[in-house]
């Protein structure tokens, strides 16, 4: 089963994009679109979009970098550790839950570390990898997506993102405890 899934993941990630290209361009050809001209016309904006997000990304990542380097995460974990027992969450996975919305590379590192120490098929290993798959790097997404259209007043986007993250983490704890404890 595991081997089959791994192959499936590989196959999909290999063929999905070529298939999309084929579909897009083939459909264009059938509909007699001047594919080359239109492609270039659309691609022109790529540079501007990428450059426009730089200030937003710098602001967000620098703040996250400062927070991570200061050791504030360790402090937060000490403060929150007594609470995790109440919801059936192993304290070792708390850094994972806190890091996931902030940093993709940071949470990937924590997941790898937890699996190395506790084993990938332990409760902690399964919970950490489920948590990783249960959410996106919310603050990175916010910075990039709002950056590209120069949104400064984000209204309810941040509370919405945080609610989604908390829900994802709690659901991960619940389902893993239900199935694997």
């Amino acid at each position, binding site marked *: 089963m*595991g081997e089959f*899934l*791994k192959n499936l993941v590989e196959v*999909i*990630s290999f063929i*999905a*994009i070529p298939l999309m290209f084929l579909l*897009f*361009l083939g*459909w*264009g050809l059938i*509909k007699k*679109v001047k594919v080359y001209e239109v*492609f270039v*016309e*659309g*691609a022109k*904006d790529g*540079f501007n*979009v990428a*450059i426009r*997000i*730089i200030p937003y990304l*710098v602001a967000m*990542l*620098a*703040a996250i*970098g*400062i*927070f991570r*380097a*200061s050791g*504030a995460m360790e*402090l937060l974990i000490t403060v929150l550790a007594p609470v995790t027992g109440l919801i059936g969450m192993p304290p070792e996975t708390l850094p994972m839950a806190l890091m996931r919305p902030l940093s993709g590379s940071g949470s990937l590192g924590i*997941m790898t570390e937890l699996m190395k120490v506790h084993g990938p098929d332990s409760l902690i290993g*399964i919970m950490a*990898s*489920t948590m*990783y*798959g*249960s*959410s*996106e790097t919310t*603050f990175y997404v*916010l910075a990039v997506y709002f950056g*590209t*259209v120069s*949104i*400064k007043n*984000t*209204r*309810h*986007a941040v509370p*919405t993102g945080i609610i*989604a993250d*908390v829900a*994802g983490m709690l*659901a*991960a704890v619940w389902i893993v405890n239900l*199935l694997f404890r």
Partner: protein
Amino acid sequence: MLNYIWIGLILIGLFVAVGNDIIDEVQNPYRNGEPFVSTVLLKKAPSGIRQTWEGDLVAPPDYFNGFYGTQRTQEPIRQPAVISKSADGTASLTMNITDASPAWWREMAKSAGSKERLLGRVVEFSVSEDQTSARVQVVLESIRFVKLKAVTQAALDYAAIAVNIALGLIGIMALWLGMMKVAEEAGLLQVLTRILTPVTKRLFPDVPPDHPAVGAIIMNIAANMLGLSNAATPLGLKAMEELNKLNPKVGTATNAMVTFLAINTGGLILLPATAIAVRAAAGSSNPGIIIGTSIVGAGCATIAGIAASKLLQRLPRYKKAMEV
């Protein structure tokens, strides 16, 4: 809100860094100013006019742990070092820090002047009769303000990372924007949009069902669910641009944008390929076991996000922000 989170991250970071450094100053975990006593097994004696000795600094783990106050290592210390005497009689010690060096010294070197070297002032140095070993007492360079240095470095590093990410996006962005334009002109997006109208109409009531934004949103969600992050980000940014064309108040997020972001940050993915790959690499007997649990987790996150965006958009303060 993002304002407060942002300044909160920075202020908490700075305060905690200062606090940690003050604690370090009191507890002195780096033993600044205290002599480390050990033996140097000499390999090279002084030759010519330069008074330098080369060799390995050795110490038992018990002494190392005792000196630094906690369990820092289990292995005996064996660290290459160079001792040189200057004309006025003072001597200094240089250790080249490599991966073989004790972890705690590596940590200290990170905060010292140079990552690869740890310097020290030799207090006492006496070579044995047979010239093969020497006793040395060395005060290593003072390590101070570790966290403040780390914070400064992190701010600079992450600013550079941000620019690299953005620059890396230029090519992929251009590729997908070009593809999207072709799909749009050919009417492919419109076909997709029409099929999914019943869903998108409910999720994004403010967006006309045949608007190009809907096509981009569908493509982005599809790419996300397939785990194609290289395609998902450009498509998502394209969707944001299209949504912004419907924005009555430039610079402020619309309801549709927040709902769209809620779906994106929920991160619903059919095959969490990264987590599976890491599990397989760690030797899991069943790497794919987390697919089901991840879908439940991300599904809950997505549903909670959509519900939260729909409920919060009715709050008076957020409604007021949208008034032109």
